[in-house]
């Protein structure tokens, strides 16, 4: 087993960032992805979706690969929130790339809820800069008085506010609410060898690579000749020998036999739910060469909590004229009442959403269809993007149901807390303020029960100072096992109110540096 070899579980943005850094520095990297290959740039997927109206089965995982069970208060399809393809969930992400604020790393000290991270904003700040350069983030803090300090400017200029955002932003400003631009991993201008955004409005399958996709860097890592991506290959467990992670047990999804893949370092980067599941499947309680697990593994599963309001206006605001998100407000991501309830980010979506009163299927002609759609021009969807409180009872365990290899799927239990209900009430009050300030003629807000995670799954292998309260240290090193790391959103201690991907990438780059230093 070569000492300078690294095996990575999961080819999403976290695994890719680590692979890219290590492969460039001369390490041998193998990435294992249970999903199928996913072409990049995503022009074929774009053609399927927008030209042919076709849901291509080639991009779905094999049967018997995904199938978690779910109890509690979360009523959406969690499996559909996880894209098992090469590149992972960030092949489809909205690309909003925000830094958490300094107090988000110490909510226990500052607000007496949650727990403090073992790392502070200032330690992570240089890695935020690197993550922004890695992803190609377009943004500015010039119009955002709530942004945390930064040591380097954004790599690219911002996407300015859209026509509709400018109208609403002016009205909000009259009432003391700031609407500002949205930093995002999409190219306002050409960046490196990625073209500038052309406003296709098809961002989740951007055909030209203007919106960042991990597949861009996967290709670059593979081009070094030192990185291999093993698609359609499931990792069944981690093998530990005398306190050191020695190998992965892997099997092709259509195969009949396992094989061991030995590596100098093993990095688990498969998302919060699958990371916990793999550690639980690898537990020493299940096999003598398993991983000795602390009590926190699988606990503190944390989602962001999103609810959307439909605001109706007298005039046409033309949502969707630009595909990218433009206007949002960070004014409430560190609000005075924080601690009694959570923080909230407000986000005007660029989506055009048909009004709910009539189904498009009712239309017999194009003219009828246009009339059904017409009110959508005068609507804006406002998302309340809320912090939740980490709770040990929200968890990932092993399910009774089993995958195609006979391994238990993940079972997720996710219940809302009183803190979450108060945060919902706070968000609802903000929607009312925005509706009044922007002179909306109607507003509808989703009920508490409609809560959506935004595909932001965090916790389950949280970082901390020791094995009693955490699974890993701030570099992602698993307590009590050498050469085994768990990274990404699963290491988060608390979620803050902003989208997690930039923080995940910053932590991944820090882990990559640490691993490179360890391996020499």
């Amino acid at each position, binding site marked *: 087993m070569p000492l300078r070899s690294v095996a990575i579980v999961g080819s999403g943005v976290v695994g890719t960032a680590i692979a890219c850094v290590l492969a460039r520095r001369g390490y041998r990297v193998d990435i294992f992805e249970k999903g199928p290959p996913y072409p990049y740039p995503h022009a074929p997927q*774009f053609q399927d979706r*927008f*030209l*042919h*109206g*076709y849901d291509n089965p080639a991009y779905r995982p094999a049967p018997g690969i995904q199938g978690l069970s779910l109890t509690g208060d979360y009523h959406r399809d969690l499996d559909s929130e996880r894209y098992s393809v090469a590149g992972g969930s960030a092949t489809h992400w909205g690309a909003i790339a925000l830094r958490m604020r300094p107090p988000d790393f110490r909510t226990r000290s500052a607000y007496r809820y949650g727990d403090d991270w073992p790392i502070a904003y200032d330690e992570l700040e240089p890695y935020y800069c690197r993550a922004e350069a890695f992803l190609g983030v377009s943004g500015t803090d010039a119009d955002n008085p709530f942004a945390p300090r930064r040591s380097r400017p954004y790599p690219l200029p911002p*996407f*300015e*506010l*859209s*026509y509709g955002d*400018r109208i609403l932003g002016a009205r909000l400003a009259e009432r003391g609410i700031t609407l500002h631009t949205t930093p995002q991993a999409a190219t*306002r201008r050409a960046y490196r060898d990625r073209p*500038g*955004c*052309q*406003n*296709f*409005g*098809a961002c989740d399958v951007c055909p030209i690579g203007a919106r960042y996709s991990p597949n861009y860097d996967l290709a670059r890592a593979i081009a070094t000749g030192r990185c291999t991506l093993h698609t359609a290959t499931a990792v069944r467990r981690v093998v530990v020998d005398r306190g050191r992670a020695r190998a992965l047990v892997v099997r092709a999804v259509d195969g009949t036999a396992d094989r061991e893949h030995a590596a100098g370092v093993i990095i688990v980067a498969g998302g919060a739910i699958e990371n916990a599941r793999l550690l639980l499947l690898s537990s020493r309680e299940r096999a003598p060469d398993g991983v000795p697990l602390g009590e926190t593994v699988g606990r503190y599963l944390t989602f962001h909590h999103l609810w959307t309001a439909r605001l109706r206006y007298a005039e*046409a605001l*033309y949502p*969707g*004229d*630009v*595909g990218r998100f433009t206007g949002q407000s960070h004014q409430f991501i560190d609000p005075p009442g924080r601690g009694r309830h959570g923080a909230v980010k407000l986000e005007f979506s660029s989506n055009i959403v048909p009004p709910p009163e009539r*189904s*498009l*299927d*009712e*239309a*017999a*002609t*194009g*003219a009828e*269809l*246009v009339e059904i*759609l*017409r009110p*959508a*021009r005068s609507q804006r969807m406002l998302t309340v993007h809320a912090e939740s409180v980490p709770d040990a009872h929200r968890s990932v365990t092993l399910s009774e149901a089993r995958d195609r290899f006979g391994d238990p799927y993940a079972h997720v239990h996710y219940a809302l807390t009183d803190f979450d209900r108060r945060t919902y009430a706070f968000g609802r009050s903000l929607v009312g303020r925005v509706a009044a300030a922007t002179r909306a003629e109607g507003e509808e807000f989703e009920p508490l029960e409609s809560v959506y995670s935004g595909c932001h799954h965090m916790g389950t292998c949280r970082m901390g100072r020791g094995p009693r309260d955490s699974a890993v240290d701030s570099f992602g090193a698993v307590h009590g096992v050498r050469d085994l790391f768990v990274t990404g959103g699963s290491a988060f201690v608390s979620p803050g109110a902003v989208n997690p991907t930039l923080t995940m990438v910053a932590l991944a780059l820090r882990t990559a540096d640490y691993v490179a230093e360890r391996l020499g």
Partner: protein
Amino acid sequence: MAALIAAAGAVTGYAIDPAHYAEYYRWRAEHLRGYRVLYERFARDADRAARARGARSFAAATREIQLDVLGRAAPARGGRPLTVWERLRADVAGDPWPLYERFVVRETLALFARTDAWIALGYRGWPGVPKGLDRYRLAPG
């Protein structure tokens, strides 16, 4: 293809650019099971129905005649799966019009909703068409 494009024009009622409709039908005929045969049968049956109404072909018929021909499938409208009765009509009685409604008319309207409907609503283009970043801060039109 002429009958399909004519159906698109008739059912949408707008001056559509036929290119992306043609590409859509062509791709489905080449890649999805059953579509080529269905499209061919649709063209034949639509022509026959149009000629019965005094037109030279479905594509050459007036919009009134075209809608009258397509109106035969009205009971299947609504985007819902075919009812048992409609399936019986299609499978046993050999009446293909419920299938035409579902796989030609409804899919054409769905394509229109994703594309030309945006132009009818005053937008500069629909999702999937590169619009550039020079003008999105201004009102369309």
